């Protein structure tokens, strides 16, 4: 080898070195992307699935409650003061705690009132019992003191805390890994992001099709998923930075931090001198008549005491994602503190904008339908990601059949289980009698029981496609049964509700019908696919059974 050749080789090596490093970086990121993706997949699927359903939270709540307790929209409202005082007389209200009244909305036409009860002796420091009333605004009649319609709240809770203690942090950590998966996905796919933007190969290679689907959904939904990742992290893990900022920047003074963050609190104590509360209700009426805002909630502090205050919280109808919060002193109607478009706080406004973007409630239902489609597309992307990981491991032959079967069964069982369980919860919400004690809890039990059943049975399934298809058919049957139950139980009164403006009831049915049609189509597609005997899938239970 002469000196020129050596020089050429060394130049080539120098050029290749960065490329090799770059390839190694991408390889490491690809491994981490797929490994973490598989680990978080089931919970992430649940978060996106429950989040997609929760986009129609208000409509589902209306669908559940209003047919049982219709409200005469033409009747005059009973004065709120009369309702509040009547309810407070019925319960052992602790006036030193606050009393919250949520105003009726176009979707949910009832007052919701949270009353803190007097705590037992010796337990004054603990959080006492709270009664949650649902009240007809026309008659003042208490519809329920133990919310029997828990389905929408349960699904919403699954979305942000899995309905588990400490679940907020679990979802936060999962969201952090999801954020990493998005960014690492961008690095992995960066070269082809624009070139292959619309690439969807229709050749017979299953892996190409799945990879294209994963990439296309991933790229197209990127702004949407990034927004969800960041906003989800802020909702669930912001406490970490709140604590560190409070400790290091505010020397432990949490209230100074919250004041800078734009949060006001009323901390004055009672003075045990009676106060007429009429002024507070006048302020509520005045606020409700203000066309520039929608009053959502009134919170009373030190009710009936000379030191009483009222906090009115509403949304500004003229400005995007603007919340109005005013604290009034009840004795003279003076303003204690105020947060609105004029008292601008960047953090507060920023968080409100993020929340509005997250919930998609700044436009009509069409936007939420778009959010729903994107959310379901992300669910599909998660499943496809898992299938890609499994296929790769099978090709590499360096994983045991047991572990591959376990991941496959877990993916199939949990992801399809969440869907069937939601359909069961919907049916339970509709058909369980209102007189059933702990009705709300029964809806949750039904959900958990079906989810467990599907998840466990997935470990004994030979053909996953057929299993998923059958589960989709069961889901369709449950959904159709729910619609039939609607009309069987309420008949033409559903049409009256539509005419009265409660369109969420039939709206939910239309949504369910569309979902049933799409599910049936997917089930048919899956059933049409031939069973390839050579590639018959290994169940997670098989190695265990073989060992036995």
């Amino acid at each position, binding site marked *: 080898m002469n000196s020129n050749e050596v020089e050429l080789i060394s130049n080539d090596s120098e050029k290749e070195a960065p490329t090799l490093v770059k390839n*190694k*970086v991408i390889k*490491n*990121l690809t*491994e*981490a992307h797929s*490994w*973490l993706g598989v680990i978080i997949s089931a919970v992430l699927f649940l978060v996106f699935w429950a989040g997609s359903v929760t986009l129609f939270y208000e409509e589902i709540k209306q669908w559940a409650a209003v047919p049982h307790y219709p409200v005469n929209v033409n009747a005059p409202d009973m004065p709120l003061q009369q309702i509040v005082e009547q309810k407070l007389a019925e319960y052992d209200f602790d006036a030193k705690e606050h009393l919250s009244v949520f105003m009726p909305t176009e979707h949910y036409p009832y007052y919701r009132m949270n009353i803190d009860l007097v705590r037992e002796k010796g337990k004054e420091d603990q959080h006492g019992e709270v009664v949650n009333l649902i009240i007809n605004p026309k008659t003042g009649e208490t519809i329920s003191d133990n919310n029997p319609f828990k389905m929408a709240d349960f699904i919403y809770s699954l979305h942000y805390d899995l309905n588990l203690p400490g679940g907020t942090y679990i979802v936060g950590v999962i969201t*952090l890994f999801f*954020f*990493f998966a998005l*960014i*690492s996905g961008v*690095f992995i796919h960066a070269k082809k992001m624009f070139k292959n933007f619309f690439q969807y190969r229709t050749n017979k290679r299953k892996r190409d099709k799945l990879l294209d689907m994963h990439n296309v959904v991933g790229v197209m939904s990127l702004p949407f998923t990034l927004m969800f990742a*960041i906003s989800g*992290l*802020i909702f669930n*893990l*912001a406490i*970490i*930075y709140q604590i*560190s*900022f409070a400790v*290091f*920047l505010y020397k432990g003074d949490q209230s100074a*931090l919250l004041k*800078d*963050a*734009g949060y006001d609190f009323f901390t004055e104590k009672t003075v045990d001198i009676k106060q007429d509360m009429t002024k507070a209700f006048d302020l509520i009426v005045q606020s409700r008549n203000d066309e520039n805002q929608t009053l959502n909630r009134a919170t009373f502090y030190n009710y009936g005491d000379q030191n009483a205050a009222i906090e009115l919280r509403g949304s500004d109808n003229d400005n995007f994602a603007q919340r109005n919060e005013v604290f009034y002193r009840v004795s003279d109607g003076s303003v204690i503190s105020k947060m609105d478009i004029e008292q601008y*706080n*960047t*953090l*507060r406004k*920023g*968080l409100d904008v993020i929340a509005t973007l997250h919930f998609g409630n700044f436009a009509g239902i069409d936007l939420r339908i778009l959010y729903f489609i994107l959310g379901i597309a992300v669910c599909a992307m998660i499943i496809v990601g898992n299938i890609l990981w499994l296929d790769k491991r099978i090709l590499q032959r360096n994983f045991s059949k047991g572990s591959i079967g376990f991941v496959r069964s877990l993916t199939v069982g949990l992801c399809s289980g969440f869907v069937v369980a939601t359909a069961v919860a919907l049916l339970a919400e509709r058909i369980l009698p209102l007189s059933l004690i702990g009705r709300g809890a029964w809806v949750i039990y039904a959900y958990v029981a079906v989810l467990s059943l599907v998840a466990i049975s997935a470990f004994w399934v030979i053909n996953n496609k057929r299993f998923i298809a059958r589960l989709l058919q069961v889901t369709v049957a449950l959904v159709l049964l729910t619609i039939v139950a609607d009309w069987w139980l309420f008949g033409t009164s559903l049409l009256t509700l539509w005419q009265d403006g409660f369109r969420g009831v039939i709206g939910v049915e239309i949504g369910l019908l569309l979902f049933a049609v799409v599910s049936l189509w997917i089930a048919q597609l899956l059933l049409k696919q031939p069973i390839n005997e050579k590639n018959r899938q290994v169940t997670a239970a098989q190695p265990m059974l073989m060992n036995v």
Partner: protein
Amino acid sequence: MWSKSLAACVFGLLLSISLMLNLNRLLPFAFDIQLFVGLLLAFCIWVAVMVYCYSCNSAKIASVGCTKVLLVSGLLNAYLLIGS
């Protein structure tokens, strides 16, 4: 991969807190703007550190790299927080 995950999570958290505290001291903005920028950037820094850790060939290499940055940032923290 587990050791990389541990390094990614721990160093991501520590570096994001440390860097954000420095930025909060150095940025010439009002408190509410500082807090909002801090909250948004903190998670982005955390994920950036995670990307770095996972892109390294081993958890040890990732930890060494992160420790160097954390030392510098920590010293600046001490100077800015104690100095003030």
